[in-house]
Structures are given as C-alpha cells and as structure tokens.
C-alpha cells in the first residue's frame, strides 16, 4: 500500500485512431503542487479530464489511495467529490446564486445539512474574497470573480486533491492576478493541487513539481528549480525558451 494520493499508471487515451496520451505515468502526494506545462494540443486537458473521469481511458489505471477508480468498482461520483476540478471556462451553475453554487454539491452529494453547508460555503467564499457576492448570479460577476467562486465551490466539497485546467487562460490580464493569488494561498495552505497552466511564473515559484508534456507523453519532470534552470531534455529547453521569451 503506497502513500500516494493519486497514481497514474500507464495511462493512454485515444480519440478514435488519434492517440492523444501515451503511457503517462506519474504520482501525486499529499501537499504536492504539481504543474503540468506543455504546448497547446499536447494533451494536458485530456489528462486532467481522464483523471476526473470525464473521459474514459483507453488503457492504464488511476489509483486513488491505491484503489483503481477506472474499472467501475468505485462510484465515480464519490471519487469526484474527493478530487475537485476547476475549469478554464468556470462552469458555474448559471441557474443558481454564488452561494447556492457552493452549497448544492455539499447538500446533494455529501448530504451536509443546509445550515452547515451554508456556513462552509461562506467560509470558503470568504477565503477567496467573494463573500460579499453571495446573492449574485454567475452572469453578474467578472471572469476573475467567477473563477474564484468556482474555486470556492470546489473547496467547499473539501476534496483531497484539486485539479485546475488553465484556470486563468480565459481571463483578462488584469484578473489573472487575483486568481493566482488565491491559488498561491491554497498552496501555502498545503492543499494538494494538480495545475495545468501557461503561467510559467506560477509553475516556477509556487509548484513543488513540474511535468513537461509534449505530444501526449511526459518528456521530463522534476522540481521547478531543475526544470527551469537546467532541464535534461532538449525539447523542454526549447519549449521553455520559447515561452519564457515571449
């Protein structure tokens, strides 16, 4: 029995004949902030979606505390409640207020009583600085605010791992900071996170582990200090040169 929270073992994913992920292998431990970087189309989103069981893998397994979650033995809903996800496009429920967005999952999935769900939602909304907006609907707040609410919604389920798929890519530049700030404090708080991002500064300064992907394979992984200053792999070096200079 290993101590890893998540273990991705030999994961492959093909859409028809298009192999998007090939033999992906890595682990996530408690407190890790793992960032996944790589060019557009390299399969980063697909990987996260596989981990959240939004896509079915072609082969391989995903172990959550040592138990395979892909073979239908574990209820996907129960697993997803423990592995939260924050999307690039927020995906807040547009028929609910900010507060209700953060309560519904707790009430219906974790069967938390209404008052407690409310307290918990307020607690996390306060943390992301969105408590004053509890009565607003998603279409009434800005992108950065939506993403902070989405983070609070995920946190309110008290997951063990949070997956982020380019949480700041859909945001206007002036709103990126507020979301990154929230994520930084989560990291400080020892939240276990797996973050797909194009924000190299975040990957370098905040993460504990960096995974570089190209064409559906992990080319290189390691601590940010190593990846960003002295990568072994030629492709990693070229990719970083390209993105850091732009």
């Amino acid at each position: 029995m290993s101590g890893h929270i998540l273990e991705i073992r030999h994961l492959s994913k093909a859409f028809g004949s298009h192999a998007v992920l090939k033999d992906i292998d890595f682990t996530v431990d408690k407190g890790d902030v793992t960032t996944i970087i790589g060019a557009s189309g390299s399969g980063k989103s697909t990987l996260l979606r596989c981990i959240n069981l939004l896509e079915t893998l072609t082969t391989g397994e995903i172990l959550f505390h040592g138990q395979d979650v892909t073979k239908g033995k574990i209820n996907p809903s129960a697993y997803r409640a423990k592995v939260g996800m924050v999307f690039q496009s927020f995906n807040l429920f547009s028929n609910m207020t900010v507060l209700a967005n953060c309560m519904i999952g707790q009430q219906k999935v974790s069967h938390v009583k209404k008052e407690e769900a409310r307290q918990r939602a307020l607690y996390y909304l306060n943390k992301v600085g969105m408590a004053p907006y509890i009565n607003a609907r998603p279409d009434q707040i800005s992108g950065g605010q939506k993403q902070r609410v989405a983070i609070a919604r995920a946190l309110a389920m008290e997951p063990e791992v949070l997956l982020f798929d380019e949480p700041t890519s859909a945001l206007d530049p002036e709103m990126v900071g507020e979301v990154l700030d929230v994520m930084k404090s989560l990291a400080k708080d020892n939240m276990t996170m797996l973050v797909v991002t194009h924000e190299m500064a975040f990957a370098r300064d905040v993460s504990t582990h960096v995974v570089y992907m190209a064409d559906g394979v992990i080319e290189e992984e390691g601590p940010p200090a190593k990846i960003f200053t002295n990568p072994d792999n030629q492709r990693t070096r070229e990719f970083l040169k390209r993105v850091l200079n732009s």
Partner: protein
Amino acid sequence: MFAQLISDIGSLWAKYGTVYLTGISNTLILSVVATLIGCVIGFFCGILQTIPCGPADPFLKKALLKFIRIILRAYVEVFRGTPMILQAVFIYYGMPYFFGVSFRDIWTVSIIVVSVNTGAYMAESVRGGIMSIDPGQSEGAKAVGMNHWQTMLYVILPQTLRNIMPQIGNNYIINVKDTSVMFIIGFSDFFAVHKMVSGAVFKYFPSAFMEMVGYLCLTLFASFLLRKLEKKLAGKSDYELVSTDSLVMSAGTYSLPEDAVSPFDEISKDYKGGKS
C-alpha cells in the same frame, strides 16, 4: 351600425351569456390542464432520450435505451404527423375495439388527446432545450460529484425550463385555439357554443365578435402571465453586496475539519468589499 351590433351582442349575452361562459371556461380548463400534462410528458420523454450511454455500458442498458428511443421517436412522429381531430376520433371510437370498453367521459378523452398531442411537441422542445445547454454545466455538476439524475434535476432541467418557456407559451396558445376540434367527439368548447348559438338565432357576426374577443382574452392573459414567469425564472437583474463583517461572524462558527489554518486572511483583506 355600431348601435345595432352592440344591441345584438347585448341580446345574445342576455340569453346565452352563461352558455358562452361555460364554453370559455371549458376551453380554458382543457387547454391549461392539457398543456401542463403535455409539459410533464415532454420533459419525461426529453429526459429519457438524453440519458447518456457510452460504448462501455452493459449491453442490456444499451438495448433498453435503444428500444425506448425508438418508441419515443414513433410517438413523436405519429402525434405530430397526424391531425388532432383525427387522433380524437381514433382514440374515442378506437377504445371499444382495443379495450372492450367505450370511453364515454368526453372530458377524459379530450384531456388525454390534447395532452398526448402537446407532449409530442414538447418532447422535441425539451430535447432541444437540454442539448442546447453548455456541456460545461453538466461537467461542472459532475466535478462536484453529482450523478446523472442530480445533474439533470438541479442544473440542467431548471435551465431547460427557463429556455423553453416561450415554447410552452406557444403550445398553450395553440391549444386554446385547437381544442375547438374536440367538438368532433362532442366536447362543448368555446367555439362549439358559437356554432350552437348562431345556428339557433342566426346572429353570426355578433357571436363571432364575442368569440374573437373571448379567445384574445384567453391568449393575451396567458402571454402576460408567461412574461411574468419568465422574468421570475431569470432572477433579479441586480444583487446586493453583503457586508463582509456579518458574514465573517456567521462563517466563523464553521471550523475546519483539518489542521488547515489559513494564510488566506491576507487575501480576504485585499478583496474585502470586492474588486469589480
């Protein structure tokens, strides 16, 4: 001329007022009840048709869903593709052949026919409504751990309902007018009253005038109510910022289950009052 019309209407009303009123209330009740039942049928069919089914699902489930889809398809095509007046005759006079009993309660048959007909139209509207909702909504729901039914009930269907309100209104208005074909099995709706009365006293225009006004009342009032309902479903157009202090106090009673003590407070301060 106007004076003549008014006096004719007056005399019609004096003699047949209650008959007209009964007719209009029959039409109103039938179309409201049938539209509501039709919506329920439509939602039910729409939901059944959008149950997700991947290649990984067991054979039995796939076969069952396929079967359900074929049945629903047939239902929709038959009831959209034939005139309601024929459907009424078909069911009313067909019952004795199939069930050995004749269905002599005209209300029951009328409600069944109009509801089932409306349901066929609504099934398509609901299916389209469900499909038009951003897939991100159901992914968001799945990501917090909701299963398919919870996702439907709390996220997708409320949004679908909001989106198809105009179609529901349309169906109601069509029903108000089209229930007049139920005279074929003897249902005395508003229009049947016109035929009966004008046939007896030969005052075609005054009666038709009253009918026009009556039908318009039924439909305009419904349009008005639907607008209100649509506004209500869309929610308030503004919101009030809640003072953070009161929230922090009430949220303060919630204690974290784990060791996590937060360095978030710095952030909360920055964002207090909210940036916009």
